[in-house]
């Protein structure tokens, strides 16, 4: 496509002009998504302000904090937080910053503590966030120090099905409304049984924009034939079109997923069926019993997956979630957790973990090829040329199709996974927030 109007580089525009330019160039309903949003520092700055400090972001799972005093350090929109279960059993998220001089208070990934002591001046906070100890307090401050004004800053958190979300937004939409109808699908992952995070998350870096990960998981089953062609050759799935059959669906707020079905084999451990039935509606259990895989994204950057493959002649599923955590306009830290039913047998847990590591960890034979694609998309999307030439990809797939009413779950549902309706829905909400 030729350039219609020469535009100044985004980096020289002010925020309002960037938004105007975005609104001109980006038409999610028509499938027009400009490539430059995958590689521009200015876009990323705006995203931090308008998306990451406003929406709910995944922090971890309640199973990571089994005991009072347990803590984990996590990232909330680029700011370190301490997520801890205090002495009263309440889970709180503290900005990991001493309120005296801003030193990072806790530098371990996890542990158990009653108090956090700042390495700079020794100010000590208990795990409810109150400032309890100040070295030489009397000598230095006399009676003038009001410790009650120096408690640790807290972020707002809420949870659903054991998944803890946090936000810096002082007036967030309630988490329950934010998840909305998508809860029906979240229940399949985290509500089917008591789930536990087995071990710490995997962490690694991809030099790519975070949205490519979200985009890939929210709707892109189409790429699996080519990008993941090797797994067909290895006999892990039966055919290259393995990922076509099933449903693609989305709900408001940009959330969406793909459900591969039917599956002649039950993807979970049989003895857990009574627990699944107790926890799920009949319709939900029916879907769960028939799935061969689910992948999706909870807006903005939490993707999830149930994968079911044959390894060493045996079928095994694994459940995982991953954050595409932006650490720059062209760099993200991927943080991936493996989950398993608490009541699963030791053998199932072990095989499920092995299959996760073999397929979707940084060494995973699915994951590897995705990261290669993500990296090169970002390389191509950098700089002036993609912006000036208004490169875009046209997501037409599914545009002329009518959603099906023949599915028990809520949302806009298509009876085929090879569509791009979910990406359009994702970018539509992204653009809405960028305009907010």
């Amino acid at each position, binding site marked *: 496509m030729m350039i219609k109007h020469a535009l100044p580089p985004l980096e020289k525009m002010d925020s309002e002009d960037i938004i105007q330019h975005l609104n001109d160039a980006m038409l999610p309903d028509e499938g027009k998504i400009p490539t430059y949003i995958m590689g521009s520092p200015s876009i990323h700055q705006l995203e931090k302000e308008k998306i990451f400090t406003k929406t709910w972001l995944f922090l971890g799972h309640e199973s990571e904090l089994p005991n009072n005093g347990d803590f984990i350090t996590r990232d909330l929109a680029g700011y370190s937080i301490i997520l801890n279960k205090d002495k009263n059993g309440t889970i709180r998220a503290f900005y990991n910053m001493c309120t005296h001089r801003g030193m990072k208070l806790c*530098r*371990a*990934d*996890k*542990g158990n*503590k009653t108090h956090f002591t700042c390495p700079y001046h020794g100010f000590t906070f208990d795990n409810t966030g109150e400032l309890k100890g100040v070295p030489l307090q009397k000598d230095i401050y006399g009676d003038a120090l009001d410790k009650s004004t120096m408690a640790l800053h807290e972020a707002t958190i809420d949870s659903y099905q054991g998944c803890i979300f946090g936000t810096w937004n002082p007036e967030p939409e309630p988490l329950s409304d934010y998840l909305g109808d998508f809860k029906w699908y979240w229940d399949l992952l985290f509500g089917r049984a008591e789930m536990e995070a*087995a*071990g*710490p*998350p*995997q*962490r*690694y*870096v*991809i*030099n790519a924009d975070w949205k490519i990960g979200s985009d890939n998981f929210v709707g892109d089953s189409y790429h699996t034939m*080519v*990008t*993941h*062609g*090797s*797994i067909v*050759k*290895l006999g892990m799935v039966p055919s290259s079109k393995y990922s076509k059959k099933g449903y693609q669906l989305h709900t408001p707020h940009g959330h969406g997923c793909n459900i591969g079905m039917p599956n002649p084999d039950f993807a979970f451990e049989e003895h857990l069926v009574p627990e699944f039935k107790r926890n799920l509606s009949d319709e939900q259990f029916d879907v769960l019993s028939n799935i061969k895989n689910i992948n999706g994204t909870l807006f903005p950057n939490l993707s999830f997956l149930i994968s079911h493959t044959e*390894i*060493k002649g045996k079928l095994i599923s694994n459940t995982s979630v991953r954050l595409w955590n932006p650490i720059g306009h062209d760099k993200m*830290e991927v943080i991936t957790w*493996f989950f398993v039913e608490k009541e699963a047998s030791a053998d199932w847990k072990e095989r499920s*973990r*092995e299959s996760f*590591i*073999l397929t979707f*960890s*940084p*060494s*995973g*034979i699915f*994951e*590897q*090829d995705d*990261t*290669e*694609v*993500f*990296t090169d998309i970002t390389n191509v999307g950098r700089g002036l040329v993609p912006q000036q030439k208004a490169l875009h990809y046209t997501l037409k797939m599914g545009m002329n199709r009518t959603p099906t009413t023949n599915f028990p779950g809520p949302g806009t549902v298509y009876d085929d996974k090879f569509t791009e309706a979910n990406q359009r829905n994702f970018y539509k909400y992204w653009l809405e927030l960028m305009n907010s």
Partner: protein
Amino acid sequence: MSITKAAEIKYQFENWLIQEAKLLDRIEFDNWYELMHSDLQYLMPVRVNKEGNERPDYSTEMFAFQDDIDTLKMRVERLKTDYAWAELPPSRTRRFVSNVDVLEYEENNYALVESYLLIYRSRTDDIHHDLISGERRDEFKYEDGSWKLSKRFFIVDQTTINTRNLAIFV
């Protein structure tokens, strides 16, 4: 044990590791795979930041590699398909093996060997490189006249691994 004997044993394993590095760096995966024992455990635990001196400072529950001889075979076979995009074209890697220390040794039977490993990885036309550094604790079993790797435990130095994937071997 005499110094000569100790030096001979050390040389033997140092040389084993150097030859192994050469095979991997030269993309000779089938020949590399031949060095593995059928009992192989190929493990790379997730490294974690712990409070103070709490040890071990790696996870005993989660791994970046957790392979046996069969799943390692799948990885090797995958790299031969036309769809192994993560290594098409293959990365240029350079493995530096050092600080080899033979901790346990039973002649013609078993050995436990520690070493340091630094992997330089360059991909396509990217001017940046990845460095993966860590410590190996390798166990060997003697079979049919040669030492085979029966367990590799690679403790990586980074908690957030600074490479886009582990499509390469450690």
